[in-house]
């Protein structure tokens, strides 16, 4: 059965990359490890100190950060989109092992021990960009289900499908570890209904009595917490509510695989699985790259990028511009010219209302109405994507939101 959910935009194009094997990129000139805004960062290295792959670099927001390459630590550098720890690679891949592989029976480990391990191993979730231990922290009220989100961040992407196909055992193993940690009774592997190879890969490794089951979702984007909760559990999340508030831990497929791999190998999460696609790149690929690899290095590896072509991070629907490097929340880069559509008057087709995941009528922003709608908007961009009249609904809602903030003194938002 295909699970449906309200809102979202059904894409017309299908990904060409789900069939491409993951390539490993190790030869990068430098890595830039992003320091999240307002996060307390305590660096454990001096400038120009030599580091190995796996060396401790800093404690950022309570989560240890390790060097994904061997080379020379350059210190904290401010760039346009924030601060970074920069390490210039010597391309030798010297490795330092801090932790021993987990030899204890995983079934004997409890919540605290597993949470401590994932914290020490620096495992982050690419859906939210948050460290996994922080997501687990939110489950203090108890956890009923663990969901591995194996969907893509955009219709053109194929990296999640590749992770599921090539690292199927790791994804299932990671979900089982999280089930053990949280005492949840069932794990769910959620993926797009059209991804038949993903389904085949999972079904090959899942027994009839397995606590982990598959959930095939309707192909619509974005797949956020709200969409997954609605599709799988028919639960409607409130405006400021997360899946964790309802006792459901949702992690990305990459994160689930990292839990299994890192605990088994004792190596921290040093690499990220990302995709680089679009017309603006010589060839698109699914890649395993060191954390913090620059967009420039990846583009060079893939044969170069068309000049002045903008690069978007994760999704064209949302249209967020990519930063300079791979961060904790990077799932894909898409180099593509921005599609422009001439604005024409609203025809009232209702497509925006149908696409809105939070049941708004985005076209109301045209007439200056809908202050409540503006506050509730999650900015997914689905309404503007489907609008046949090319109305810049997202920016109009943002303006409405700003005006509402002014009217209310800004404290409500």
């Amino acid at each position, binding site marked *: 059965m295909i699970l449906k959910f309200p809102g979202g935009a059904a894409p017309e194009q299908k990904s060409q990359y789900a069939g491409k094997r993951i390539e490993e990129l190790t030869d990068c000139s430098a890595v830039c490890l992003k320091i999240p805004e307002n996060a307390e960062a305590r660096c454990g290295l001096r400038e120009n100190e030599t580091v190995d792959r796996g060396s401790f670099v800093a404690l950022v927001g309570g989560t240890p950060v390790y060097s994904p390459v061997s080379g020379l630590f350059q210190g904290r550098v401010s760039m346009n989109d924030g601060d970074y720890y920069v390490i210039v690679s010597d391309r030798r891949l010297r490795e330092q092992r801090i932790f021993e592989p987990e030899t204890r029976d995983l079934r004997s480990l409890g919540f605290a021990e597993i949470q401590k391990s994932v914290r020490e191993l620096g495992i982050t979730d690419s859906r939210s960009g948050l460290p996994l231990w922080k997501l687990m922290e939110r489950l203090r009220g108890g956890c009923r289900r663990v969901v591995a989100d194996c969907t893509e961040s955009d219709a053109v992407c194929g990296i999640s499908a590749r992770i599921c196909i090539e690292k199927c055992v790791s994804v299932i193993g990671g979900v089982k570890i999280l089930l053990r940690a949280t005492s949840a009774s069932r794990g769910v592997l959620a993926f797009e209904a059209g991804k038949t190879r993903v389904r085949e890969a999972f079904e090959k490794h899942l027994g009839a009595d397995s606590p982990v089951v598959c959930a095939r979702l309707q192909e619509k984007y974005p797949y956020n917490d709200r969409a997954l909760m609605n599709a799988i559990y028919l639960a409607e999340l409130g405006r400021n509510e997360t899946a964790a508030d309802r006792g459901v831990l949702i992690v990305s497929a990459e994160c689930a695989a990292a839990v299994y791999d890192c605990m088994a190998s004792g190596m921290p999460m040093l690499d990220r699985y990302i995709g680089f696609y679009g017309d603006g790149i010589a060839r698109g690929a699914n890649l395993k790259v060191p954390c913090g690899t620059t967009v420039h290095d990846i583009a060079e590896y893939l044969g170069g990028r068309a000049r002045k072509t903008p690069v978007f991070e994760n999704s064209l629907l949302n249209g967020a511009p990519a930063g300079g490097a791979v961060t904790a929340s990077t799932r894909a880069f898409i180099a593509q010219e921005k599609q422009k559509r001439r604005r024409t008057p609203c025809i009232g087709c209702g497509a925006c209302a149908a696409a809105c995941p939070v049941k708004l009528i985005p076209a109301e922003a045209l007439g200056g109405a809908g202050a409540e709608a503006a506050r509730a908007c999650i*900015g997914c961009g689905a309404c503007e994507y*489907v609008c046949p009249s090319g109305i810049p609904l997202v920016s109009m809602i943002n303006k409405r939101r700003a005006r509402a903030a002014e009217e209310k003194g800004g404290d409500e938002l």
Partner: protein
Amino acid sequence: MSVMPAAHSGETRLSKASDRLIALLPVLIWSVYIFGARVITLCALSVGFCFGLDYFVQRYAFRAPAGVRTDPYNAVYGLCAALLMPVAAPLWAPVLAAAFTVAAKNIHYRDTRRVFNPYIFSAAAMNLLFRGMMTCYTRPLAYFNAFSFVIDGGLIEKYRVLSPLQYMAGGSVYEDGLLPQFIGFSQGTIGEIAILALMLGSVWMFLRRDGNVLGTFTFCALIFVLAYAFPSKDAEPVYYVFGTLFSGAMIFIAVHALNDGATMPMNSLGRVIVAAVCAVLIFAGRKIFPGFECGYYVILAANAASPFVEKLTRPRVPGTKKKAAKSG
């Protein structure tokens, strides 16, 4: 804070208008067969003047930029305006209808919603101003000259017949039976007679997810139930039920006017409620004023009330209080 999408779906204003035109195509083809080439002249004049007048309004009144002065929806509105006329109408009628259509097209509520459905407004205005001409129906397959500016009165009288709605005003049902009405061998305005063709067009519309099938169904079902519950004094009930549904542009309204997004509520519940109220009012109107085509006026009233219905029936945003959601 979000940024703007870097991609758009393939649906454009042109593709949406094309869907509506494709839905109207069976009606147009059937009407040409039934009423002759004069249908093409009337439709071409209406569509052409809709484009021309709207271009001038956009350019000189609204000072619209060059790219948005030509709206593909003018073809839809112009065609619908012509389809709501009798074939014997003089050739100045579609020009005037186009003027009414363009005027209504450019009256907006809060810069977003259109106040009145353009072609329904045009039909209502023409019916008010030229009631005799607009209710002068001729029998099917009586072809008039396609290019006669005004058709000779004597010729019209020779072929003049009562429409099914006019029959029903006298307390009886259409004497030729239901099948000719369903297929489209009856008299009436150009577009209202071809029930089968209208239904074929609606299938295309709903397949393309244009319009709300529930609203259309509610309207038809309610008319059906009301006609069955309150039959005419000496009419056979089943004949009366279908006769009511097939006469007086009822199906045209159900398929096209109730699914005009710019003048009807955008949310499904709002459309269903408006459709239900329209069905009740049209039926009541017919009972109170037999023979008077009140459908156009009911639709215009529904158009004007739509923003308020939409506001009342807006789905609650998850996580907000009921009161706050309604205050908007």
